[in-house]
Structures are given as C-alpha cells and as structure tokens.
C-alpha cells in the first residue's frame, strides 16, 4: 500500500467519523423529543387534552387567560362582541353554597357538534383530537357557535388591524376558538400557554392515549369529570374537584 493510498483511507475514515459525529446527536435527539417532521401528518396515536384540577384553581386568578391572549394575539377585551378563547368561570353550588373556579375553553370533543353542523367542513377535528376552524373556508355562518354546548367559539366582529401573530392567523368574519396551542404542540413544546402560565399547575397538558403521560396516569387514578358528560361528546378536556 503506497503512502497515497494510506492517506486516502485515513481521509475516508475520518470523513465518515466526522459525519457520524455530526449526525448522531440529531438522530438521538429525534428519539428523545418524539417530535414529528413538518411533512408528517398528525396521528391518531395521540389524543391531546387537558386535565384541570379545580381544587388548585384560584378565584380571581386570570393568568391562564392572559397567557392565552398573549400567545395567540387576542386583545383581552371582554365586551359583548370580543372573542374570548378561554375564560374563568366562577361556580356556586345552588344547594350548598360551595364555590369553585375553573377555566373553560374549547373542550376538543371526540364527537364535536360544531364539526357536525359546519356546512363547509371549516370546523374540523385533527387526527390527534384537536378541534380547529379552517379560516380559509369558514363562511362566518356561526352555526358552530349555535351548536357548541360550551360557548367556546367567537366570531371576529371587526378588523384585527395587524394584531395577528404569524403562527396564529385570524380573520374578520370568521369564527375561532382555542386551538390547544397547536403551534406549540406541533413544535413539540409538550404544553400549552395556559398550562405553562398556571401558577398552581392546575392545568396539565398531555396525551390521553399515552399511559406513561402524567395526564393519562392521573385520569386513571383520580375521579374526573367531563362538562356536560350527558351529551356523550367524550371531551379532551377533563376536570377534577367538581
């Protein structure tokens, strides 16, 4: 083997090692992060949802609402015509007087009435359970708002005056609601703005289908409740403590 050949072999070996060194962390990270490539569709292997512990949720605390508004570019105004994707509901038991506080948003139903009634299919449910509005084909008929048992949807009544954020397109005359921070979910953040902001960690985001997930474990351990369970919609958002 002449000197040149030895040099050539060393060079190829070194190049392979370098390539391996560059690639390896990426490959390892992909395994760690479980995130999907942008061209890969969402999968029904996951069912994203929230578990809300109302016993930790404080009356008067509005942090989840503020975080949602900031994350999604909503004004935070609460007039009759202003959109609200998440709101704090204060409850008082009519018989006992016991009070509860909880956040209410789109419940991301398995059988969403808003999707049933939508004439164009603009209201739709992703394979991973997130219920969304396609702003390209929403005609603003508001039938979904009539159909939603949770009052989760809002119509954009006026010009948004360039307050939209790049990751959350909105539009005058279209209906909108909580997206379960799908841009964060798709990015692999593994949480939502409201869950992140809650000082008491009363909101837990996760995959209802993954037994190793905190949310699935808690649901399997503690009694939880769907709001309007009588409707049989199998919501993705569950509550404990009420």
């Amino acid at each position, binding site marked *: 083997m002449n000197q040149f050949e030895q040099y050539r072999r060393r060079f190829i070996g070194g190049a392979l090692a370098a390539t391996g060194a560059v690639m390896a962390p990426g490959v390892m990270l992909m395994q760690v992060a479980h995130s999907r490539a942008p061209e890969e569709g969402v999968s029904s292997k996951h069912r994203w949802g929230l578990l809300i512990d109302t016993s930790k949720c404080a009356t008067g605390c509005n942090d989840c*609402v503020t975080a949602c508004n900031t994350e999604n570019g909503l004004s935070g105004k*609460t*007039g*009759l*015509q*202003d*959109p*609200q994707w998440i*709101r*704090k*509901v*204060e*409850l*008082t*038991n*009519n*018989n006992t007087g016991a009070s*509860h506080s909880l956040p*209410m948003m789109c419940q991301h139903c398995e059988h969403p*009435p808003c*999707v*049933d*009634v*939508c*004439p*164009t*299919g*603009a209201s739709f449910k992703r394979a991973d359970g997130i219920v969304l509005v396609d702003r390209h*084909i*929403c*005609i*603003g*008929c*508001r*039938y979904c*708002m*009539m*159909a*939603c*048992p*949770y*009052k989760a*949807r*809002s*119509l*954009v*009544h*006026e*010009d948004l005056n360039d307050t939209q954020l790049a990751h959350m397109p909105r*539009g*005058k*005359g*279209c*209906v909108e609601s909580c997206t379960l921070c799908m841009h964060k979910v798709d990015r692999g953040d593994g949480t939502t703005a409201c869950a992140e902001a809650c000082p008491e960690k009363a909101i837990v985001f996760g995959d209802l289908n993954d037994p190793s997930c905190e949310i699935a474990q808690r649901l399997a351990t503690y009694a939880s409740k769907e*709001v*309007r369970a009588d*409707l049989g919609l199998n919501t993705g958002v569950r509550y404990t403590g*009420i």
Partner: protein
Amino acid sequence: MHIVNRELEGNSKGYWALLGGLGALILLGLFAAYNMEHHGHVITGMNNQIVWGLPHVFAVFLIVAASGALNVASVAGVFGNKAYKPLAPLSALLAIALLIGGLAVLMLDLGRADRAIITAWEVNPKSVFSWNVVLYSGFLGFAAAYLWTMLDKTVKPLYPFAAYGAFIWRLILTTGTGLIFGFLVARQAYGTGLLALMFIIYSLLYGTAVYVLVLMTAYLGGQRPLGAEVMRRMKNMLMIFIAASFYATLVYHLTNLYFAKEWEFERFILLDGGLYTTLFWVGQVIIGYAIPFVLMALPGTRDNRNMVALAAILIVLGALAQMYVTIIGGQAFPLQLFPGFTEKSSFFDGQIHQYIPSYWEWMLGIGGFAISLAMVAFAVKILRILPESLADEVADPHAKK
C-alpha cells in the same frame, strides 16, 4: 265560465310607486349588507352570545313562509280541489320569491358573504345547512317547474309530477329548516325534532297569510274582481292553520314544562323573560293567533274582507314575534354548563344575554322582504299569473251561497 290568465297592466302610478318603494328598500338592504361586510358584524347588535339576530328572524320567516305559500297550489295540484286551480300560479310564484328573499338575507348576513359559494363544493354531508343548500335549490327547481307546467299547456303531461314533487319537497324543505334548530343539542330551546313539525305547521299559516295579502293587493291594485268565495276559502284555511299552530306551540311548551330540567327556560319564555315573554304572549299568541281568529270567526267581522286582510297582517306580525322568540329568545337564555350551579364569567355565562338589533339589521331584513315582493310585482306584470277575474261566478260557479 272559462278562466283566462292575463298579465297585470301595471302602468298605474300606484304600481310604479310600489315598485319604486320596494326598489328603495332593496337598495337600503344592500347598503346595510355592504356596511356589515366592510366594517364587520361590529356594527350590528349581534355578538358572541346572540350570534343569530334580526336578519335571521326575517330570513327564516321568509323561508318558512315560502314553503307555506305553495300550499294553495298544492290544494289544487295534489289534493285535486279545482276551486284552487286559478289561484295556483301566484302560489308557486310567491313560494319562489319568498325563498329567494329569505336566502338573500341569510347569505348577506354571513361573516364572509364573499365565500358563500364555497358551500357549493365544500359539502359536509352531516350538516343540516349543507342539506339545506340542496333543499333550497331543489325547491326552486320544483316550484319553477310547477309554475311552468301551469302556464304552458304544451308541458301539461308533466303537471302532476311537478305538483307532487313540489309538495313533497316543500315538506322536506321545512323539515330541514326546523331541524337547523331541532338538531342543536346544546341549547334548551332546541334539541327536539318537534321543531321540524312545528315549522311545517307554522309555514302553512305564514305562507297562506302572505298569499292572502299579495292576492288582495294585486286584485285591488289591478282593479280585477275578487269574489267572496275565494276570500271565504282563504279565511277558512287561515283559521284552521291558526288552530294547528296554536296546538303545535302548546305541545312544545307542555313537553318542556313536564321536564324539570326545562323549567328555568320555560319560566324565562312564559313568565319573566321581559321582551321575550311579551313577544310570546302579546305578539305570537294574542296578535298572531287570538285576534285574527276572533276577527275571522265573529259574525260581525268574518264576512268583511278588510277584516280578513287585517287578520293576515296580524298573523305576519305574530309570525315575526314567534321567530324572534324562537331564534333570539332561545339564545338569550344562557347555556347550562353546570346544572345545579350558579355560573359567572367575563363571557357572560349564567346571565340572560343582551341583544339590541341595529338599524343595519332592520334594513337588511326588510330589504329581503322587499326583494320577494318586488319579484312578485314584476312577475305578475310580465307573466300570465293572475286570472282576469276571480269573481264568484268565474272562480267557483258551483259554490254554495
């Protein structure tokens, strides 16, 4: 005597004033629609609580009345009562016109009216709205074919098919309109298939009332004879339909009153709902049912055609009150997310929702009405819709006096 249909001359000052007035109302309606598109629904009284407002009251009234307006033609074409045959072309024409007026309001109220056409190719087979796109188109087709077979003797063999088709289709159409609400599980006012039947019964009353008013106006304005026999038949139909509508309303509320979970809602509509309670009792029941029924039943007034006209006007006003109570009252009562709890939030949970219609909404709704009436006024001038005479000896020579 042979019945001859002839175009209305339509050259009088009154005719042009009518057409001009309706044209002005249509322009105002379009101006309102333009502004609602330009500024958004922020200029209306509608909000995220009352999402369907006054435009829907007018639109649903017109659409329901459209199928009912066909009733007079169906009595002739389907049930074979010859006395109604001369009255049938106007009936089919009015059905088409009312439906188009109602649809115009519905379309122009959309948040994105420019995208309405999307419903033609993005179809959700589970959506009642999607069904209605097919039902509305089909109804227009059947009613137009029906009108054609009545006016053109060369296509007479097709007449029974068109007559039966239109009759069956109108029942399906109004079922579809009722189910827009009937299939809403979320709200206490809705979520019952009873609404489909109620809307069919209401449609008979509302459509016939509008028919009577248009017929009387046309014959008065066109200076053509309109016999007492035709008026007697119309009056009898209206009385039967009032009784049926009252019965349907009674069954709906009795059903709710039997269910404890509906008591709060019924209390709201029947007792302490403010405007909605007033509109129900005074508007729908007294103005819409009781007074017209009495006017058409009492010996002193029942043979006076002006009283029948007044009754028809009151029925239309009662109908609008009914639609207001059904559509807006049904939304004003808050959703019950947590039965047994009092709810409070920044999104107006647990409280009666506020709604004050803006003048834009009045303009749009009345504009839709005007579209329907202008279509009729125009069509009776260019088509042979109206018999030259509906005097007793022509229209119904064998009627018992």
